[in-house]
């Protein structure tokens, strides 16, 4: 089929496809460029292939609902199904997502600034629901947006910034309001996707995941799109550490890891992490 697709003396299907991918030699590339400059038919074929490629690359990158892990000891002492506390985490996160979805918050700035208590009261993750909740969304009052200013990172107490090596204006900034918390405390997390090619506040569409990890095990945090001002999608939340289904002892040193698969079809990944210490029981 590819060889059949060669028409007149123009480039073959493979050559046009590789041209889109910048996978031709300089000579091959120049040859295709020369030809399509004077051939409407091949320009049209190239446009069609480009459209198709863009449609595929436009598929959203989804975030897995499970935390992938390795066994503590010995392979079959462990199962990769979402069981045990990891399963509890997944269930809790799902429940929270559904709970939040059902809040029906009114739109507009007034609702935003007043949403803290509404959200806290409306979440379906408290003990009364029989699930240990893990995440409370960060209501994003207007005053708080100053804290998200990337220029003010210096004042953050626990922050990490990773710059895209291929695009210095693109950065992943992860921070928490403290490097250390009581195991029953609340942790504020923000992840700024500066220079994202997408404005989506859906973490799956942005390719963002947040995980708290220790010794090969992790809890996936539900990154809530909280604000998009000045074109920067920001995710995060207030996370209720008491509700995290952590294995004993809960106290100890963890890492909070933000992974951002840049949603431009390149497959490039930025990853930032900060240390988190939990104290007490």
């Amino acid at each position: 089929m590819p060889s059949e697709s060669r028409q007149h003396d123009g480039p073959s299907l493979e050559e046009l496809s590789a041209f889109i991918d910048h996978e031709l030699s300089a000579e091959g590339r120049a040859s295709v460029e020369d030809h399509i400059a004077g051939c409407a038919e091949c320009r049209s074929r190239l446009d069609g292939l480009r459209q198709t490629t863009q449609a595929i690359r436009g598929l959203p990158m989804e975030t897995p609902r499970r935390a992938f892990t390795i066994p503590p000891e010995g392979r079959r002492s462990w199962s990769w199904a979402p069981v045990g506390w990891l399963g509890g985490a997944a269930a809790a996160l799902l429940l929270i997502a559904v709970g939040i979805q059902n809040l029906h918050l009114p739109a507009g700035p007034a609702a935003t600034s007043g949403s803290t208590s509404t959200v806290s009261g409306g979440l379906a993750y408290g003990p009364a629901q029989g699930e240990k909740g893990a995440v409370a969304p960060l209501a994003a009052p207007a005053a708080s947006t100053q804290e998200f200013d990337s220029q003010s990172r210096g004042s953050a107490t626990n922050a990490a910034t990773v710059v895209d090596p291929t695009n210095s204006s693109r950065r992943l900034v992860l921070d928490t309001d403290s490097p250390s918390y009581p195991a029953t405390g609340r942790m504020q997390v923000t992840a700024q996707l500066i220079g994202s090619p997408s404005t989506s506040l859906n973490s799956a569409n942005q390719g963002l995941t947040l995980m708290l990890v220790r010794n090969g095990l992790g809890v996936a945090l539900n990154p809530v799109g909280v604000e998009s001002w000045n074109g920067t999608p920001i995710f995060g939340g207030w996370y209720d550490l008491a509700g995290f289904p952590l294995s004993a002892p809960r106290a100890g040193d963890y890492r909070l890891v933000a992974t951002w698969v840049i949603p431009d079809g390149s497959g490039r990944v930025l990853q930032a992490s900060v240390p988190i210490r939990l104290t007490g029981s």
Partner: protein
Amino acid sequence: MFPSKDKNPDDRDLVSRARRGDREAFTQLIVQYQVPLYNMALRMVGGREDAADISQEAFLRAWEKIRTLRDAPFKSWLFQIAVNLCYDHFRRGRRYGVMPEDDQASNVIGLGIATPDPQEHAEASERHRLVHESIEALEHDMRVAIVLRDVNGMAYDEIAGVLRVPLGTVKSRIARARAQVQERLQRHPEVFPREDARAE
């Protein structure tokens, strides 16, 4: 068969530590690759549960075998494991269900922030569904080539390493896959109007 140049040099230290049994280092590799690996599997097998199973099994096998990894880039090696698992999945003839509607949308949470226009959202969902179906209709060898290229953004030599086929085969499979997807999408001009038609 793997490309000699490691495109992810930052992996080297993590892989080196993981080979010595450092679980934390391997966990960082999991975190780094879980989304691209899962999405590769998702576009290959279609179902979220199956894709998650394949991803988890790939990480597990990689952890078990990482001591055997010498000079090959970790990413290509990991994806090779996962691709083989996808083929195993096909060989077993396991049926996979139709992808559920875009339930990731349930993670879009309104906190006084403008939400996407419902019509735009519906149109985007329909586009994604048709693209996904067109990829799913491809023969497996073509499907994996186009997924590694257009979903995972791998270079041709990386794909050749993952699939253990010559570069020319990669080029040919990607081109043929794109042509077939294009042919299927063009059956829906209301969703995928041609650029030249749009301009008229």
